[in-house]
């Protein structure tokens, strides 16, 4: 391990929906996340405060990444989120060569080397169709909670949704409901639509195993299963996948001990 492995460093991944913090204390990880509220800057400061209080030490440096990276007061550096997600995924799953990361408003697919260096990537344009936002709006329309969708859609033959625009898809879902289609088939249809869109995005890259899935949407096992089937490759979802970007930000400053052998504490 590098000489820096004993330093304490904090990574903040300020996403569009949730803020994730990962604090490497020099011997263990502290992980903490919170919803990004309207007062974004305040939420970030609170999260940093919690992590420092729990760790009982001050970090030698704070690296910010993600959509709100410039709102992180006290950050000593800013790191690009694609690079962070690449590094983070390789740290969480050694041997990872392809990363799918779908968060609140982004979908990205990244090719990485064993070192975590990005060799190619593709990311959605400004339209957030097929991301977490799409999922949460449609869950709302169906009066379901985001966390239940994965189980409801599992192993169900999907209805084919033709709209990928969130607004049109919402109208389409309302139309299907009014014609009496069963909710699980609609949910499976939404998952199928996201999976197809993600795979179509990814098809512009060469997908090499091991494939790792991170970001908030990784909590939906039905979407993962459908993507896995479409690309004919197994997909690994690591524990604490939500923190991949924040951990990757720390990795730009130091070399913590390898993942499975360290103590991890959620705060």
């Amino acid at each position, binding site marked *: 391990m590098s000489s820096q492995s004993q330093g304490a460093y904090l990574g903040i991944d300020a996403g569009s929906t949730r803020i994730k913090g990962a604090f490497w204390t020099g011997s263990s990880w502290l992980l903490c996340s919170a919803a990004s509220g309207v007062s974004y800057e305040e939420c970030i400061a609170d999260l940093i405060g919690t992590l420092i209080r729990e760790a009982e030490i001050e970090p030698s440096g704070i690296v910010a990444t993600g959509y709100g990276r410039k709102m992180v007061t006290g950050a000593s550096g800013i790191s690009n*989120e*694609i*690079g962070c997600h690449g590094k983070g995924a390789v740290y969480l799953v050694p041997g990872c060569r392809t990363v799918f990361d779908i968060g609140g408003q982004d979908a990205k697919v990244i090719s990485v080397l064993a070192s975590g260096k*990005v*060799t*190619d990537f593709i*990311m959605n*344009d*400004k339209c957030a169709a097929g991301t977490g936002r799409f999922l949460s709006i449609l869950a709302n329309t169906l009066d379901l909670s985001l966390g239940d969708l994965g189980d409801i859609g599992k192993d169900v033959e999907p209805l084919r949704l033709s709209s990928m625009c969130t607004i049109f898809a919402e109208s389409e879902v309302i139309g299907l409901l009014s014609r009496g289609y069963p909710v699980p088939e609609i949910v499976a249809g939404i998952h199928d639509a996201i999976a197809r869109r993600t795979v179509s995005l990814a098809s*512009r890259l060469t997908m090499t195993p091991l494939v790792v899935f991170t970001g908030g949407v990784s909590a939906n096992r039905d979407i993962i299963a459908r993507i896995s089937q479409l690309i004919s490759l197994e997909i690994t979802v690591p524990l604490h996948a939500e923190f991949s970007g924040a951990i990757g930000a720390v990795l730009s400053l130091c070399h913590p001990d390898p993942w499975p052998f360290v103590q991890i504490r959620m705060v």
Partner: protein
Amino acid sequence: MRAESLAWFDQAMPRASAEVPALKQKNVSIVGFYCVFAPQELVLAAGGFPVALCATKEEPIADGERDLPRNFCALIKSSYGFAITDKCPFFVNAEFIVGETTCDGKKKMFELMSTFKPTVVLEVPQGPEGKAQDEYWYSEVQRCKTEIEKRLGVSITNESLRAAIDRMNRQRGLIREVAALNKADPPVISGQDMLKVTWARNFTYDPEEFNSHLEGLIGEGKKMAAAGEGAFPKDTPRIIVTGVPTGLGAEKVIRIIEESGAAVVYVENCAGMKQYLYDVDVSEPDLVRAVARKYLKTPCSCMSPNKDRMSIIAQVSKEYKADGIVDITWIGCHTYNVESRILAKEMKEKNVPVMQVETDYSPADTEQIRTRVEAFIDMIRK
């Protein structure tokens, strides 16, 4: 450091707006055009002044959408929005417009535009090769010549056409020399400044004045290169921009690239070098045919196939030592969007990374593009 000679080019647009009334007083006819397929030599030979019309700002898009479908590309909606609201001084003062059928959207836009402005629309063949295509385009350029003569009440002689060709050939040569300054490391001129130079040409009435400023820039640039000076530090990652036109007002992606720590060393698109690649061949006895042939060679995605664009990008990637290529596509521009796949595949074989950015004129996606551009620069950095 920035070349001092660039200061003159910064002022080209405001100068041009002020020049319009003076031209009118001198009875110089302004002829508007939008696209690099417009054979500007014919306008010059008739004593007119060809001027590029406004098409690169977001502001008039909402007006454009009153008549045009929303899913048209930003360039067409902006052009049309400027035109119907009289916000483009060049459009207002133009005697007529030379348009061309370079895509379905433009073709139909000119149809609407012709109801309130005199237009001459040239039909462009679907491909650049073949005898029939060559003859067809030649007849369209001939028709354009006749229309210009009729509308401006002059006849274009062989002598006047030859003078116009010489004038434009000379200018193209000088602009190629300016671009070539960026083969040096560090590059001498930023991509954003290069756009100002190519842009200024569209609005400068006096060619001698423009050429002398180009020569000044070339002289200063050569000295800078010899002294190892440039617009960026040495070893700055080098990017070639290609794809749709990115005139001033629509240079968002180029600005983001340069703000994120890379240099745009060559702009291949229509706002950049595409129109300056080839000269009109004066050894051809029929000068109208020579003019037609130069324009038909324009490596535009409206041509099928458009192999020349691929080989040009491969060649300039080598000459300008590009670390990567950023291919910009306006949402709604099907032809450049399809070619992005072809380009990525061809350049992958040559180990030059390509990133496509699909966007429009609005600043809404600036931060998302920045994230991708930063990651791309990190990836290509040696």
